[in-house]
């Protein structure tokens, strides 16, 4: 596949219903007419996406060879520890944030974004590119370590003692981890036959529900835009350059772990994406002194739209370019 057709993929990715719904959400904020879903529906949608991703991944995991899965999991854990360290150092260099805010940022960028991941799957499926079905396992694995490392960095470098009372629970037993993990296990146990019976719900509706969810994400991201303008070049730079860096790191690691083009690209997306659900809640509890305005502006206001619109096709192009050497 040459660059021309890659670019046309990028355009058709932008013109997919979910991405356009995101843009509609952003625009609606500008028009002061937020197209938000009612909160309970937004929550239900997010439960649906987590379970659906988990289920599908579990079914695929069962069909996979344990040997094929083990190395990517180990690599993902390594990346989950490495990336927040990189973020912490990068931010010291590019911004004047204090250690607490840097730890908070590290926790966000060390963890992952379900929706970005999902959009990448939809991208590959539209393009008919193969990826390893067990990728949701890596999503689950990458969810937690980044948050823990980020928080520990903040505690260490701010010389505060941690009241780990509820954040441990929040991190390890948060709803998103439980639903993903639960879905994985259910999918694994039920297998192809069991999945078939719920496929019209968890499979057929998936892209449509994602579009609805992205409409809402567009509103949330749009509300952050005014803050982006005042965020400072250091933070904006981080929110765009850092994902490119970790995205490429993820792709290379993916190839080295034996993943296919699609799998390597998705590992790249996982590394490049920043959490805006699990991490913010955990950080708010564990690091109340951190300024949530900064982390959300960066992860939700800049990195998320960047990844969704530019990043996903870009990581794909990068993965294609590297395939010859590493794939």
């Amino acid at each position: 596949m040459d660059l021309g057709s890659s670019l046309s993929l990028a355009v058709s990715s932008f013109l997919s219903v979910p991405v356009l719904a995101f843009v509609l959400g952003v625009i609606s904020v500008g028009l002061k007419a937020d197209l938000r879903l009612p909160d309970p529906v937004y929550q239900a949608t997010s439960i649906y996406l987590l379970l659906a991703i988990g289920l599908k991944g579990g079914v695929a995991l069962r069909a996979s060879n344990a040997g094929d899965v083990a190395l990517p999991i180990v690599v993902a854990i390594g990346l989950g520890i490495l990336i927040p360290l990189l973020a912490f150092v990068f931010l010291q260099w590019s911004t004047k944030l204090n250690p607490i805010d840097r730890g908070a940022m590290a926790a966000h960028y060390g963890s992952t974004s379900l929706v970005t991941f999902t959009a990448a799957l939809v991208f590959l499926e539209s393009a008919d590119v193969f990826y390893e079905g067990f990728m949701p396992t890596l999503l689950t694995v990458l969810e937690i370590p980044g948050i823990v490392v980020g928080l520990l960095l903040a505690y260490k470098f701010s010389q505060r003692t941690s009241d780990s009372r509820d954040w441990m629970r929040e991190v390890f037993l948060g709803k998103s981890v439980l639903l993903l993990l639960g879905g994985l296990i259910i999918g694994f146990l039920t297998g192809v036959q069991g999945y078939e019976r719920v496929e019209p719900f968890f499979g057929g509706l998936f892209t449509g529900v994602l579009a609805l969810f992205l409409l809402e994400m567009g509103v949330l991201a749009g509300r952050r835009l005014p803050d982006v303008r005042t965020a400072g070049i250091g933070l904006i730079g981080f929110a765009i350059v850092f994902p490119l860096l970790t995205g490429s790191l993820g792709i290379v690691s993916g190839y080295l772990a034996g993943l296919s083009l699609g799998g390597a690209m998705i590992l790249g997306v996982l590394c490049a994406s920043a959490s805006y659900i699990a991490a913010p809640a955990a950080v708010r509890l564990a690091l109340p002194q951190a300024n949530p305005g900064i982390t959300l502006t960066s992860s939700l206001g800049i990195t998320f739209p960047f990844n969704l619109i530019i990043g996903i096709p870009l990581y794909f192009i990068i993965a294609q370019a590297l395939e010859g050497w590493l794939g």
Partner: protein
Amino acid sequence: MKEIELITIVTESVIQSRLIEDLQRVGARGWTLSTAQGAGPRNRRVSEVEGGNIRVEVLADSITIERIWQLLHESYFPNYAVSAWQSTVLVSRSDRYSNDTQKDGA
């Protein structure tokens, strides 16, 4: 009818379970919670993504209320978006809400 104190606390929903635990720890024998939205002079929070505010009401004797204010001052006001106010109300069956005279033994 007896007088008792009512404190209303509005804060970020992300800390709901921590707050409820803390309230019970300092002596509240009950609570009522509704969801809410809001804005205030501080407005620094993550709740937008997480579902807005909560509004918690606690009926308690004045000693417990005193301890709740202390709790808010120590653990909540510094870092979270919180508003709280207190008033005196009339209740019947006041021993349900108070730790002074635990007649009903619950």
